[in-house]
């Protein structure tokens, strides 16, 4: 059974460029969340999508956007890249939309490591 898959695994961009990161959730999972992890810190929540709609947004600028497709895969887009966007971007999937729906374990992918020069 495939886990959460992310692509690309590594990429290097220059300031001002745009990047698209992709995520495929575990089969049957309808919720996808994105997290940013800067070196030496814990992951920070960026977005949650459920049934193709945005259900939550963290404290990130409008340069960050995402979407979810009918097959529940997701893309994270970052425009006008800054040096500070260099980080590991993690995607997580879960079955339920909320933690109140039941045991809602988030399973993470291996991440996409973005370096901005």
């Amino acid at each position, binding site marked *: 059974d495939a886990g959460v898959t992310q692509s690309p695994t590594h990429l290097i961009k220059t300031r001002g460029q745009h990047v698209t990161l992709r995520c495929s959730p575990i089969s049957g999972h309808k*919720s996808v*969340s994105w*997290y940013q*992890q800067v070196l030496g*810190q*814990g*992951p*920070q*929540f960026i977005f*949650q999508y*459920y049934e193709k709609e945005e*259900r*939550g947004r*963290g404290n990130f600028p409008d340069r960050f956007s995402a979407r979810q497709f009918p097959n529940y895969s997701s893309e994270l887009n970052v425009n006008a890249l800054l040096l500070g966007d260099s980080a*590991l971007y*993690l995607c*997580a999937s*879960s079955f*339920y*939309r*909320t*933690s*109140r729906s039941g*045991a*809602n*374990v*988030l*399973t*993470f992918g*291996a*991440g996409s*490591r973005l370096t901005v020069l």
Partner: protein
Amino acid sequence: GIQVEQSPPDLILQEGANSTLRCNFSDSVNNLQWFHQNPWGQLINLFYIPSGTKQNGRLSATTVATERYSLLYISSSQTTDSGVYFCAGHPSGGAGNMLTFGGGTRLMVKP
């Protein structure tokens, strides 16, 4: 939002030693999970433990929800236990299922 504090921030152990990692939350949380992040960045679920005690091999975890803390016990540590351990939770009553993570405990187990 909630604050999550983990202690200790860094821990060095000799192989075979036992350790306890702690996680304190500033408010009630749901969906409490412990993760191990390996050197390649992969976050691996260790426990989903909103309350009570669970054990999995040499690892066990206890959450006291009323006092807003959770503990992760590692017994007979091995070099493969090295990495960063994170706890994370979702604010009780909050919408969605976003997790707030602590800063992590960086564990190094020496042979």
